[in-house]
């Protein structure tokens, strides 16, 4: 099993989103960054598949120089090597992102053999385009199932499950395939200290692709209005119980 997982670096915005003055991005001066949650599960799954079946797991990101942090995080939980498509920090749209990833996959496969499985998050946490994985799948001519919450490798095929309407849809894909996954697929492990030490020494290949113009052009970002209110304090500690139950009765949810 040779698995590639593509991840995106996103800011951990916390309680309030603040924009830069030009309204083009989130102000990240005081924020930490993480691998977008769906992809974090993708990394864990790729590592588990390789632990179970042997082979190699590779992690790829398209992002600014600092996104090496997320590649090292993925390598700390077990990915064997990294591919960094370095940008100047400008946002790339899904078509451009997929184009650069396809070129990188073809180059890597030519040098070191094909990937059985390429994993993406179903959508990125920030821009939420819902399409990068599918674009890569189409360009490579590989089948793709999206929004997966369970995957299992069978004999030459790949069984995967999607939640829908409380139930599940089951697919079977021939390999090689591309999948997009959702948080809940697994519970990602925390990197160990030795894992972090090893990650610093794992191979990482960097290149700098050219960003094409976007046909879906961002004009500006806007924080939705009407979010800020001041909660009415019903009381403090256990003494508030009576006021809370009054409220619940008033809404009509107590019987």
């Amino acid at each position, binding site marked *: 099993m040779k698995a590639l997982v593509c991840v995106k670096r996103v800011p951990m*915005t*916390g*309680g309030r*989103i603040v924009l830069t003055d030009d309204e083009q991005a989130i102000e990240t001066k005081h924020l930490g960054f993480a691998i977008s*949650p769906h992809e974090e599960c993708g990394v864990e799954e790729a590592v588990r598949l390789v632990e179970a079946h042997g082979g190699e797991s590779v992690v790829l990101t398209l992002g600014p120089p600092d996104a090496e942090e997320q590649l090292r995080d993925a390598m700390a939980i077990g990915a064997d090597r990294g591919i960094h498509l370095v940008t100047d920090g400008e946002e790339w749209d*899904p*078509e451009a992102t997929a184009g650069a990833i396809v070129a990188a996959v073809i180059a890597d496969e030519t040098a070191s053999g094909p990937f059985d499985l390429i994993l993406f998050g179903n959508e990125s*946490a920030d*821009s*939420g*385009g*819902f*399409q990068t994985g*599918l674009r890569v799948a*189409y*360009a490579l001519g590989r089948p793709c*199932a*999206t*929004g997966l919450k369970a995957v299992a490798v069978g004999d030459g095929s790949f069984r995967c499950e*999607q939640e*829908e309407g*409380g*139930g*599940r*849809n*089951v*697919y079977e894909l*021939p390999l090689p395939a591309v999948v997009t996954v*959702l*948080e*809940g697929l697994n*519970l990602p492990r925390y990197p160990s200290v030795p894992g972090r030490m090893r990650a610093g020494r794992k191979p990482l290949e960097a290149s700098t692709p050219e960003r094409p113009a*976007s*046909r*879906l*052009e*961002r*004009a500006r*970002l*806007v924080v*939705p209005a009407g979010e*800020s*209110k*001041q*909660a009415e*304090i*019903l*009381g*403090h*500690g*256990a003494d*508030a*119980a009576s006021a*809370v*139950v009054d*409220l*619940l009765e008033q*809404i*009509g*949810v107590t019987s």
Partner: protein
Amino acid sequence: MNLCLVEHLDGVATDASLQAFTLAAGLGGETHALVIGPGGAEVAATIPAAVVYVAEHDALDAFAPDAWAAILCAMPSRTGVTAIVAPGSARATDAMARAAVRLGEPLAANCISATPGNPLLLTRIRWGGSLLEEARLHTDCALLTVVPHTLPAVAPGSPGAVERFTPELADADLVVRVRERVAPPAGGVSLTDAKVVVTGGRGVGSAEGFVVVEELAGLLGGAVGCSRAVTMSGWRPHTDQVGQTGNKIAPEIYIACGVSGATQHIAGAKGAKRILAVNTDPEAPIMSVADYAVVGDLHEVLPAISAELRRRRG
């Protein structure tokens, strides 16, 4: 002319599809609709479009996203479409993304408004709705999905005409196709349908600590939710998570205990009619999104609320 993909469930067009239709109709010109799969003809009779196309094919009894994309792509040449609009459901979004690749077009996912023109002016959501993006879409055939539950649904009505057709599907369009459907588990109140949701966050402190959350949810006939901090600690399964990468809930009242109120958490609770926060910290961000609050330790407050409910019931 615009085309709206209308999904249907149990013989009825989904609300999200009828909301997408509203956006499509707002783009001006005629709005046509496309209905795919068994039962489509009955659904077509309720859609107030100039023409409703019904794609019928033996292979369409199970969802096959590439087949849906193939059908969507056959439509522009069929009818001279300048925009294809679909609901932002998982299925429709998947099919639209595939159609976008096949047509060589961008896809603008999760729009809440569109102003006609070239470029088309769009507002779409980011961060599960915590942030909006105003964008310009430069293309002759705009592909858009619409965030569910933000626009009013078009009222059902009779179509001008219904045209049934059998699409041509290649074998490759049927490689990815639902093989098996596992029915939802019976019983229990589902988080997404519950009238009351009681959520515990990191402030609950442990898996065992959820006893007080479960007790209150049980007394109110509600469901238990949790934050991502809880899921990541392994205290509750991810199926309980509320938020951008968890469940989107719409209860009469959302009782969020020991939850700080991160934007990604609140993104899942935007449909809640009211929010009651229970938190030791009067400055927690949740205090500015909640309608009501109790300042205090949830391990004291929740048992007291449960006891008061029991007392009043006698």
